[in-house]
């Protein structure tokens, strides 16, 4: 049976639809902890998406190329300075005591504290990925979504380099209030490699991207076609019984919504 309503969008229109969907996507700030070179690091992440080019592949694949992932990450890295600095054990100190002469007492060894090194970076990465079309009726609202098929490969090298670059001043700043601890800075920095940072960033971003989806169309199942014109002339609604989305090839590939009412 033929659909009652058919709407089509070519790749240019589909690109605009995607960009609008990116603007409406609100990703709550994520937080957690993960290992960075053996340090149990706390992190928080905020992201948003922009841009990207759409290419349509029948029957239901939408490829998004060069989507811009804008992210801000804050890390808090706990570092036990005793792993880098030996305890300071001073020699005994002697006091001249009038009633007995010299009394020498031991001084306690001084151990070092654990510091928390804060690092924040903001950057943009681009990725390309295939998305699949899905439609569903949720609480009386039809939603058409594009959901990522698999985690894309993202070059996190620049982001890792940015973290490494920020780490030096951050470690120096965290050690500044601790007398004599500054000698540990190069040893601490040497313990955190670019590869370790890349691994951490991947660990943080992967779950977010694996569940990425954009809503490109939303419509209440009860669709108003005429507004109310008075007390005895109420609004007129039709029921959208079914909505299907697909990529169809004609003279060009198009994103097609087919609606039964």
């Amino acid at each position: 049976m033929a659909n009652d309503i058919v709407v089509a969008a070519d790749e240019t229109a589909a690109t605009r639809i995607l960009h609008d969907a990116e603007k409406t996507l609100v990703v709550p700030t994520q937080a957690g902890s993960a290992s960075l070179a053996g340090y149990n690091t706390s992190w928080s992440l905020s992201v948003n998406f922009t841009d990207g080019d759409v290419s349509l592949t029948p029957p239901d694949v939408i490829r998004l190329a060069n989507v811009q992932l804008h992210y801000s990450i804050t890390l808090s890295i706990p570092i036990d300075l005793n792993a880098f600095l030996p305890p300071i054990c001073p020699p005994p100190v002697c006091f001249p005591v009038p009633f007995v002469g010299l009394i020498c007492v031991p001084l306690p060894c001084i151990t070092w504290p654990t510091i928390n090194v804060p690092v924040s970076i903001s950057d943009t990465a681009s990725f390309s990925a295939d998305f699949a079309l899905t439609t569903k009726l949720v609480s009386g609202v039809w939603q058409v979504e594009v959901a990522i098929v698999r985690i894309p490969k993202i070059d996190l090298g620049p982001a890792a380099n940015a973290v490494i670059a920020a780490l030096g001043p951050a470690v120096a700043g965290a050690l500044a209030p601790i007398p004599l601890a500054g000698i540990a800075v190069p040893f601490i920095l040497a313990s955190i490699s670019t590869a370790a940072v890349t691994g951490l960033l991947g660990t943080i971003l992967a779950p977010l991207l694996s569940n990425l989806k954009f809503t490109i169309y939303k419509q209440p199942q009860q669709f108003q076609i005429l507004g109310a014109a008075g007390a005895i002339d109420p609004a007129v609604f039709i029921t959208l019984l079914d909505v299907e989305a697909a990529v169809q090839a004609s003279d060009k590939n198009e994103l097609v919504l087919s609606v039964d009412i």
Partner: protein
Amino acid sequence: MDALDSRLLHYGDCFAQQFPSTGDLSYWVSRTGASTPRPDRELASIKVVAPQAGEEHRQHDVTVQLDGDQLGVDHTSKLRIAAGDVVVWHAADASVGYFAVSGHGSNFAFDSRALTAGSLYTHAFAEVGSYAWSDPGHGHLRGRITVRAPEASNDDPIGQWFAQLCEAAIVSVRARSADPPELEIVQGQAVAWIIEEGHGISITEAGPTLEVN
């Protein structure tokens, strides 16, 4: 480490007592400074003998340590010293926690919670800051210790700091007065309060004080 209180000794503190006369003394090390020993606890003991002619006073070190969950000392036999010698007690490490030392013989008694002439208390200051101290039992006995951070501006900052730590910082206590009343030291350095006159003295970090004229 920076609980300044001679009534509660801990790692970084020392208590020293001179024993001026001969005799046998029993002593114990307790967490609460209880005035009477538990019947099942074995006491440590000191035998004070007459010094040899021309013999100089000596220092005898006793380490307070944990024996299981009980406090003990590192000498199992009777500690034999000469009259005029000094015994110095200190904790082996931070696991010892807080302790007090007290004891008595037929003609002499001592208690780290109540310092008397011939004793001293040392405390190592690990944190930078200003510490007002007083004797809660003697309102006029008070002072201030100012602790500054070590300088790290020369080629051998550790060596320079160690040299400062070896400098003797002394407060002489004579009954109601402390000399000097104000003292500045470097972080990690120890101060010795030497009790030259008085009894029942304790050194504690001062709270808000009421001036009495």
